[in-house]
């Protein structure tokens, strides 16, 4: 199954400021990828390249088998795009903007657009500027879906919605996008909104993908392990330590691929506690982890854990 989206070692800088520093990932057909990152992590730059608005400096991008920058029409015909606060022509009515948009897409399905308008309870004769925030997002979804795109790119569309509307939006995504077998690239800040609907998550930080995998697998593999300071001094494994902090006589390590670490501790009868983490904590460990050892007084010994953390 060839991927719908494929990025290989993509780099991009603006005014000599690197924004993407070698990003690689694939999204397979029918999958929903949650693309997570802090502000300025490079999410929007990635989306602009997926849509073919800007070229990468190096590396390759393939969307639905095409280079989006060289073949933008090919790609955009088959892609739906929805952003937060999509400004539309406020003076048009709902029915008018549907008629306005249709000619841009050879595959536009008027019947389907009408069907969504009914299902989403959008008033066809109402001017866009009179729609509520929730109605606006739903209209954006109609416009993004009516040409039956194979790939839908969502750029934080739920940001301005209240919790009830977000849930409704998620339900619409599940029924109309996932139900229809579409591939979804969902960029978001709202971790708990995307967690239940994503097959995969990718965490972008400072221009690189720091973690990518099936949502629940990532949650399963990242754990916080608490050991005594004495036990910590006896660790000699080369673990991926995302975060390290000390409290009193204990050291808490947030570790990726923790199964091996836990097995090692058990095999050496080193007392430890394993703490499950939620997506927020996992995300924080990857993008803001305290990887230094300043809080842990072990400067006098060689510190392989800290070294492996610093090398990461």
């Amino acid at each position: 199954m060839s991927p719908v989206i494929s990025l290989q070692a993509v780099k991009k800088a603006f005014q000599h400021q690197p924004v993407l520093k070698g990003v690689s990932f694939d999204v397979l057909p029918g999958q929903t990828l949650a693309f997570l990152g802090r502000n300025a992590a490079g999410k929007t730059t990635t989306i602009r390249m997926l849509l073919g608005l800007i070229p990468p400096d190096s590396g390759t991008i393939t969307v639905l088998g095409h280079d989006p920058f060289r073949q933008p029409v090919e790609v955009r015909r088959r892609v739906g795009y929805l952003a937060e606060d999509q400004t539309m022509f406020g003076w048009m009515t709902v029915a008018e903007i549907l008629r306005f948009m249709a000619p841009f897409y050879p595959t536009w399905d008027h019947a389907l657009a009408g069907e969504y308008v009914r299902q989403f309870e959008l008033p066809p004769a109402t001017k866009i500027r009179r729609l509520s925030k929730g109605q606006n997002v739903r209209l954006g979804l109609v416009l993004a879906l009516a040409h039956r795109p194979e790939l839908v790119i969502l750029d934080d569309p739920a940001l301005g919605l209240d919790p009830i509307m977000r849930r409704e939006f998620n339900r619409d995504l599940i029924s109309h996008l996932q139900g229809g077998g579409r591939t979804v690239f969902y960029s978001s800040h709202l971790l708990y909104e995307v967690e239940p609907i994503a097959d995969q998550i990718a965490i972008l930080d400072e221009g690189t993908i720091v973690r990518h995998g099936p949502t629940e697998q990532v949650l399963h593999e990242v754990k916080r392990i608490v050991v005594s300071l004495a036990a910590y001094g006896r660790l000699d494994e080369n673990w991926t330590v995302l975060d390290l902090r000390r409290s009193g006589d204990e050291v808490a390590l947030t570790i990726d691929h923790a199964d091996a670490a836990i097995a090692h501790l058990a095999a050496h009868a080193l007392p430890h506690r394993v703490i499950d983490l939620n997506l927020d904590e996992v995300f924080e460990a990857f993008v803001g982890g305290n990887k230094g050892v300043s809080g842990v007084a072990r400067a006098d010994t060689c510190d392989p854990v800290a070294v492996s953390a610093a090398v990461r």
Partner: protein
Amino acid sequence: MFIRIEKGSTVPISRQIMDQIRALCLAETLKPGDQIPSVRQLARELAVNQNTILRVYERLAGEGMLERRHGDGTYVAPHPPTWRMESQRQKFTEELNQLVSQGTLLGLTRDDLHLLVDDALDHRPTAEQPAAPSSVSGAS
């Protein structure tokens, strides 16, 4: 079928759903032969990825708890499978292991822990017979 999902929990969503369906079956709120919502329906209702729901149903079907009838939906299996006790035991063992490691961190010795277990056994309110699989309840 009422299922509640806690957002931001450390318990993965598939596990939350799976545990609750199991609990509903153990409590016989869902009875053998009852039809449960389709993957699509439950996914939409809970606003959860369809693949997640599908994985849960397949896993529970694999355990013999649910029965997926091709083209006809998903039902609670007609006969209580023997895994029920095993799964409960496994859960209990996991919890006990955690308790023991917490106790160890508190400085309790092997003998201390044995004594505590003996105490707990001695102070049980009533000496019940081990419950038969079909009468396991209160899991909710």
